[in-house]
């Protein structure tokens, strides 16, 4: 099986349901299409199912009912058991986990970045070249020999992103990429995502940070606390829908952010 006959849809989900054993968390009755080259933000409060959806899109979890297709091909355990298909799918879809500690499992930065290309079957020379390029692009050359436990939070996030990008995926799935980062690293991540968007990558970002979606999304999908997709639209439409944001627990009535179409924002409390 190959991806050469893929349609323009990066992902299409039909009536997808997933819940964890003994829990109601997950996603419910999800119909969704993400086009290639599109920048989509999954917006929702904690526990609304954003991370679960990313894992489904990455073929790490499989729907209990419904169907998930990537590039026109159904994605299930059987399909990913085919080594050729698995390698092709994994190369096209990269996943940046929220927890960098889980993402960075190699013993140093160099090996972390080399992991993906090596698994994809790159030759040693090509892997070396790719890692050197990535180290330079992400400005990580000075820390290439450092083990993960000697990296700061910001450095870990940069390495995690670099390690995933090293395989040159078509789609980047990002779980809360700016959470717990200092402002400068947050800005660095956002600028990097904007750059990837310009390079034609499909970006699917799960977040509850309203400040960043205007820059990194063409379309926003809003998830409710009942794990249903409750709305979708352009970032400015979603950000101006105060009732929707209140309903899905993304703003608080006493303290929230006003977002105006012109991009002018003010913070104030309603006491």
């Amino acid at each position, binding site marked *: 099986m190959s991806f050469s006959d893929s349609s323009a849809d990066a992902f299409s989900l039909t009536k997808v349901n997933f819940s964890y054993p003994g829990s109601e968390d997950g996603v419910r009755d999800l119909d969704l299409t993400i086009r290639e080259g599109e920048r989509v933000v999954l917006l929702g409060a904690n526990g609304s199912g954003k991370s679960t959806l990313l*894992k489904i899109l*990455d073929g*790490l979890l499989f729907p209990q009912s419904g169907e998930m297709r990537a590039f026109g091909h159904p994605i299930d355990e059987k399909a990913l058991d085919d*080594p050729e298909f*698995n*390698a092709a799918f*994994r*190369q096209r*879809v*990269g*996943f940046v*986990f929220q*927890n960098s*500690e*889980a*993402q960075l*499992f*190699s*013993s*140093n930065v160099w*090996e972390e970045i*080399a*992991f*993906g290309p*090596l*698994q*994809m079957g790159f030759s*040693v020379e090509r*892997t*070396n070249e790719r890692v050197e390029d990535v180290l330079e692009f992400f400005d990580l050359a000075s820390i290439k020999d450092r*083990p*993960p*436990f000697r990296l700061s939070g910001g450095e870990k996030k940069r390495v995690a992103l670099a*390690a*995933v990008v090293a*395989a040159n995926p078509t789609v980047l799935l990002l779980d809360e990429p700016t959470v717990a980062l200092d402002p400068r690293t947050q800005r660095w991540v956002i600028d990097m995502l904007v750059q990837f968007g310009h390079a034609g990558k499909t970006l699917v970002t799960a977040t509850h940070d309203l400040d960043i979606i205007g820059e990194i999304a063409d379309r926003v999908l809003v998830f409710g606390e009942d794990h249903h997709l409750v709305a979708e639209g352009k970032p400015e439409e979603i950000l101006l829908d105060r009732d929707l944001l209140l309903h899905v*627990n993304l703003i*608080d009535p006493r303290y929230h952010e006003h977002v105006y179409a012109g991009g002018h924002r003010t913070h104030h409390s309603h006491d």
Partner: protein
Amino acid sequence: MSERRAVPPWLQEKISASLPGAERRRFTHVGFMEKTLNAITKFMDDQLFSEQIAKERGLLQTLDPRAKLLSVFLLILTTALFHHAFPLILMNLWVLWLAKSSGVPLSLFTKRVWIVVPLFTGIVVLPSLFNVVRPGTPVWTVFRLEHPVTLRYLTIPADVAVTREGLAAAALLVLRAGASVSLAVLLTITTRWNTLLKALEVLCIPAIFIAVLDMSYRYIFLLLHTSNDMFLARKSRLTGRLRPKEARRFVASVMGNLWGKTTALGTEVHGAMLARGYTGTPKSVSHFVMKGSDKVWLALVCVVALSLLGVDRVIL
């Protein structure tokens, strides 16, 4: 979210900001919590210190790790073949010189080796010092019985004594263990741990074992940090000394908590590996290059090993 509730009265009570004068005790009780925290900190410090030594530009640090591993393996094997103390003493002295040439502080090196070795090997060889286990020429009589006592398979002579043969065998074993442990310590202290693990490929260790060891080492640090945080959080809320029962309960809860975290992390790490194309076969790139100096080193080690073996078998 529910409506904001009024602050309960107890939360509004003011506690005086001034602290009572602390009673200075002569002896401070060091509880299990401090001991655990100190042990974790010491482990981290040791690792950091070893890493610093591994970064030095000493004799052994410049060698290819595979050449270093092979040479240490060969030297330990040779050490096990010696029958006399003299070549063992020579080997120990040579290892000390190697440590010095590699920038390893000798005081630290000798402490690491010569405190541990006599302690553990001493316990093993202790019975063989006496004529109860190994008959021989007595050098020091410990006590006298009225007559020899026979206990099924064991005969205790009337004069229970330390023998010359027992002392010689014990010295030989301690010297042999000392040389072997010195070589192992020298290898681990002059090589970064992940490099050393990668070099195991030269001993034909399967790649999956090396990958598992490598990841275990990486996550030990993360879990140590987590344990450290849990102990510190508990300590910050401790207002008195913990009773043994409470301490046991706390340690059990830390263990349970860590187990849960480890399992969850393991699942997430596996997911992260699958997401990047892992299919069960680890692949890695080796950057090791066997230079001319490494070959010279291996030849030198062979010459030293054969010479000492010659001294042991032919001359002595």
